[in-house]
């Protein structure tokens, strides 16, 4: 069980994220019973078997995009995106695409090197669950971090969280000097 921030609240999440160890075949991964999230390659290799269970999710590595899962969006229990390094910004586009192009409305987890200073941008790109590395933050720090979700209350640009840009959301009146 890891502590995650889900929809702005700290909760325990029981999803188990499976990774492929060195020398292991993704297709041959031992997928235990219960709520598990498998690598994309495992899902693609054993799609029918895993989809039938109804409690299996898929995670994307940094270099994997949602195109590969386009036909299965309605069949996965959950989607997660790995952040191998916190400065690797590909996952932000992956999330935005899942939400805006592929119609994914379920739980979307950011995991790996997920830092509180990125929570605001991550949620605006469509992540509803933020899972920092185990032990990365104390409970008190995580509490404080929840507040950072609202760092920018009225952002300029359209995003998953604000589908309309500011110039369409509000009437902006010039205040010429």
């Amino acid at each position, binding site marked *: 069980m890891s502590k995650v921030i889900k929809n702005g609240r700290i909760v325990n999440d029981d999803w188990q994220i499976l990774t492929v160890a060195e020398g292991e075949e993704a297709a041959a991964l031992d997928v235990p019973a219960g709520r598990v999230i498998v690598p994309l390659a495992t899902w693609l290799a054993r799609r029918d078997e895993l989809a039938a269970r109804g409690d299996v999710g898929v995670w994307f590595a940094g270099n994997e995009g949602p195109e590969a899962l386009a036909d299965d969006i309605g069949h996965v229990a959950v989607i997660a995106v790995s952040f191998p390094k916190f400065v690797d910004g590909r996952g932000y586009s992956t999330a935005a695409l899942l939400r805006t192009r592929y119609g994914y409305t379920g739980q979307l987890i950011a995991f790996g090197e997920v830092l509180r200073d990125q929570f605001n941008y991550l949620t605006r790109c469509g992540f509803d669950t933020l899972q920092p590395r185990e032990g990365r933050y104390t409970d008190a720090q995580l509490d404080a971090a929840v507040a950072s979700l609202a760092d920018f209350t*009225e952002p300029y640009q359209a995003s998953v969280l604000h589908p309309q840009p500011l110039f369409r959301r509000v009437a902006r009146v010039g205040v010429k000097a």
Partner: protein
Amino acid sequence: MYRYDAYDQKLVDERVAQFRDQMRRHLAGELSDDEFRPVRLQNGLYIQRHAPMFRVSIPYGHLASRQLRKLAELARTYDKGYVHFTTRQNVQFNWSPLEVIPEMCAELAKVEMHSIQTSGNCIRNFTSDPFAGVAGDELIDPRPWAEILRQWATFHPEFAYLPRKFKIAVNGAKEDRAVIQVHDIGLDLKKNDAGEIGFRILVGGGLGRTPIIGREIESFIPWQHIITYCEAILRVYNRYGRRDNSFKARIKILVSALGIDEFRWQVREEWAHVKDGPNTLTVEEVHRVADFFEDPAYEALPADDVGYHHHIAEDLAFASWVKRNVRAHKKPGYASVVLSLKKPGVPPGDITSEQLELVADWADRFSFGEARVTHEQNLVFADVKKSELHTLWQLARKAGLATPNIGLLTDIICCPGGDFCSLANAKSIPIAAAIQERFDDLDYLHDVGDIEINISGCMNACGHHHVGHIGILGVDKNGEEWYQVTIGGSQGNNAAIGKVIGPSFARAEMPDVISELIETYIQERHEDELFIDTVRRIGLDPFKTRVYADRQPHRKVANV
């Protein structure tokens, strides 16, 4: 100029609060150096050789007098009483202690300024034409578009952790004064045959380690779609740009690897999904922003001012300043003025708090309260009455801001170099100083005419050396500082990357090398031919021959 509404102000204030907390956590040891790095960089804060360097954004180079005064005050309170204007129309502090930076951000926010995204692997400050709105060759004012795009890019959640930094420039005149060809995206405003406004879009230009001239990805994208098109470019780059090697991570490398046609295909594929979406611009929003850039209240004046011509005829020093530092204006009776920050003996682009306050006073008195920063690191008053030029000149001269050298050899573009920057391989300011000292004869400078010397202390090319008519690059050879020289580079519509003339030189040789290049030009030039045109006509060889002739070992021995 653009003024913040409650939304702009709130975002900047929220940023200050966010950064204050991040700094507090960093100083408390909660945020490691590695985790703090991108956070501080996206607030313009570098850890430098001697002290932190703090870079403040000046969107498309516009400054109000109250902003100039705030910079002066901050430099005096938190720094050593001067600031440095950069080649990207930003301004830098060099000596402020780390822990005061959030306080400086808070002070800047009071005058609608910030340091947001002035560094880091995100979309940086938008640069544009310093003569926007007043230039005779302007087709469309680029400033509203630069402001609209600035807002789109500010705190963009998807593009804050790009493979590498991302720079966009906007031009709206016949002559490109924003160097759009060497930007990640270069936007050129134009009208199509139906008279509709749109953009020619260049992509993948850049200087640095691999200098490349940007390539045209679209010849015309209607204005409504400029945000969605840029978003498509950024998304393709964010997803597929290289992240394994920071030297190969700029978009120019991706564009080169795919080829412009394949890259264009991928962008259009992406664009097809986002085109006509919510980010499509509205007439109302464009009008709202454009209203801020309407002409100031010009007086109806005669085209010529008798007193002004009298002063030119009577006062040679004034005439020489007018010739170099005063530019034509679209309105009769007005002119634009360039205040030179290239006084010999002062590092290029540096200005003291006292001078900043004087500039603010003159802005209020002579130019509707505004000044502008050029990428050549000078300041501009866009709207000065011709009848007041002589008064302004006298004041500027007293303050050391009227060196009549704009566009001349001593108007050198120069990065802070090894004196300040931890990336630098070599010092650059002393090279500029030595060249300025060598060429101290104004008559000679005027005879040499328009020439651009650009100096960078390392291959990151902040001094834009590749596009200098003469480019000087500091290189490190076994721990020693050497300087490589290129010629034939240029900015503007015919932007070109300079070619290396040969082996690099020791610092002490540099003034001689420049002298020899100039002498070769004077010897070879046709009447009225500029240095760059002579280089283009005769090629590198005559220059090489001259410069290296005296530098062969046996000649040196013979000369002893």
